[in-house]
């Protein structure tokens, strides 16, 4: 009994510093936001705010109008599309990079990592002005060279969605390729050899050996990426919705929608309530898709 208590104590002591940091930077802000959501803190009550109970939640329900619902749907679609393409592309590319006789693999890998090495806003700015700009962008310069009309790439919902997806994939793929690559290399090659001897084709090997073996290794990264994609703000906001540089599309994720419809009010109680509701929605989604339980044995 005593030994067991000691062992538990040691476990918590060893993981303590990490858990403490998580408590401070991850858990505390959520608790604090929840606290603020119960107060009337705003520009008008900056110092003298008081707890007012659930009023803010009551008001926040009015934000969940049709605009919010369509933003929510768009966000789900956005997450699904991005994750599917990302996983498939990363898997195929990482597999190709692992073909034994590919000599220049290291060079390719490094070059493919480039998008990841740049701060996000720099890349998004480069895409926006360098590629999609309707006057100067490369796309329209090429369209012109082909004798076609210039297109306003970011001004309609569908094409803005596609453009954002392209940029998001460009930003996120390097990480996914790296994770996949590492996972693929951890598979014991003897499994493959015996499978080849048994006459299993590439598809069969992928299905029965590769995917089951890499699944536990990539699961954490994939789950975290799902959340990152779901709460993506920068790509959509900077590309299409930035104040003073909007492009005319109405494609919103829940975060950009909430930003425009609540956070700009500087009413901290009210915005906090909305943050908490969005967070609750994310929890519901992740429990529905059992994201939290995966990787747990």
């Amino acid at each position, binding site marked *: 009994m005593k030994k067991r208590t000691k062992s538990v104590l040691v476990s918590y002591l060893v993981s303590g510093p990490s858990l403490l940091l998580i408590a401070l930077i991850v858990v505390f802000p959520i608790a604090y936001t929840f606290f603020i959501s119960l107060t009337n803190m705003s*520009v008008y009550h900056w110092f003298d705010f008081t707890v007012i109970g659930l009023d803010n939640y009551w008001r926040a329900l009015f934000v969940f109008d049709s605009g919010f619902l369509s933003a929510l749907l768009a966000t789900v679609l956005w997450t699904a599309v991005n994750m599917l393409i990302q996983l498939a592309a990363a898997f195929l590319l990482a597999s190709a990079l692992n073909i034994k006789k590919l000599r220049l693999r290291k060079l390719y890998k490094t070059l493919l990592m480039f998008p990841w090495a740049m701060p996000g806003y720099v890349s998004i700015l480069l895409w926006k002005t360098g590629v999609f700009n309707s006057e100067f962008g490369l796309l329209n310069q090429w369209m012109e060279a082909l004798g076609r009309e210039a297109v306003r790439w970011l001004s309609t919902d569908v094409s803005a969605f596609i453009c954002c997806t392209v940029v998001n994939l460009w930003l996120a793929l390097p990480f996914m390729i790296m994770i996949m690559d590492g996972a693929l290399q951890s598979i014991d090659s003897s499994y493959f050899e015996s499978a080849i001897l048994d006459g299993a084709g590439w598809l069969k090997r992928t299905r029965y050996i590769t995917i089951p073996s890499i699944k536990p290794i990539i699961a954490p990264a994939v789950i975290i990426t799902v959340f990152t994609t779901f709460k993506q703000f920068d790509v959509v906001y900077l590309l299409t919705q930035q104040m003073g540089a909007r492009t*005319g599309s109405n494609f919103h994720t829940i975060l950009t929608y909430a930003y425009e419809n609540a956070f700009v009010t*500087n009413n901290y109680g009210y915005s906090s309530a909305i943050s908490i509701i969005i967070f609750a929605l994310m929890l519901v989604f992740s429990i529905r898709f059992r994201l939290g339980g995966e990787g747990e044995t």
Partner: protein
Amino acid sequence: MKKLLSLLMAAMLLLSLAACGGQETDAGSIVIWHDKEDAVAEVLQNYLSEALPEYTITLEKKTSLTDSLKLVGNDPAGAPDMFIFAHDKIGLFAEMGILAPIEELLSEGELENYLPMTTEAATYKGTVYQLPLYFETLLFMYNSKYMTPEMVPETTEELYAYMEANTGRDRFGFVEQHSTAYYSAAWIHGFGGEIISADGTPFPDAQAVKDALEYHLKFVQLMPGETEYSTVNTLFLEGKADSTIGGPWMVPSAREAGIELGIAPMPVVDATGEPLAPYSGVQGVHVLTHAAESKGEAVRAVLEALTAPEVGVELALASGCAPARAECYDDEAVANDELVQSMRTTAEIAIPMPNLPEMDVMWTVMSNLLTDVNLSGRGVDESFDEAMAEAENLIANMK
């Protein structure tokens, strides 16, 4: 072993960091945040260091200054002592309770030496919260290589005719940041409309706003699809746009790019007989309450130094700022500066940006409305009703 080593390293790093960071507040040092061009900051920094050698005054450039202020509030450890910004956020920060009334920190009657427009702009609910330094307005600028002075349009219809005749492949007769609230306000004012009234009602004259948007649309169709600064700026600087409406900050780069820059009065709207009236912004120094309380003496000294007419003159000469202090215009160099003079003329028709807290959300509402009408191609009435609802909703949710 390796782990131990890395732990040790980490501990050492932490220690060294703790030693080199940190800050203490002392009554003789004043930190001023700003987000201005380097030329402006340099003039102010040099002037203050010279005029007040007994104090340590630091101008620190802060990106997204207003967002940061909303975060640090009035906390002496995180907040600056003063900051330089346009007057349109005064209401917001005054309601937050972080701005000190400026009049009590100046010698009596000092503000009477300023152009009335600037002190009015700095007043919120009867109290002045800003010592004005200079003001700026948008100006009608043209490239006289393509648009000769006699071709400069006097009315909006003339402008439209010019645009029709001179817009084509890779070439624009006129460009502006058409779907940005700050720029389109000029058109709305030209039709007698307002984005927000003095008592905080959004779009008090709905019809005027709708008319302006409807009329403006045909101009937008002859402009590029982008509304952001870099596109408009580049088109004008590359000589691909003959004219533009832009701020004084465009002037140095235009001169550098070798543009034969001309500045003209704003065109008059044919339908109303009123000129396009842009917003004017008064840039000035704000004092945070904590500094006014704990560093009163230093704050007074800085403010007093900044009231000297030389500051305005130097700013005007360094980067074409129009001084807020009336006597600066007695200076011959300032009086002869074309840019400063045109801003002063435009300021007569310009409307100071509203400084109500509600204006903070109206920027977003207006920008949505403009995007809907100009870029998404939706009907003016429908978009306007939506914007009105959004405005009322956001304003209600501020409290």
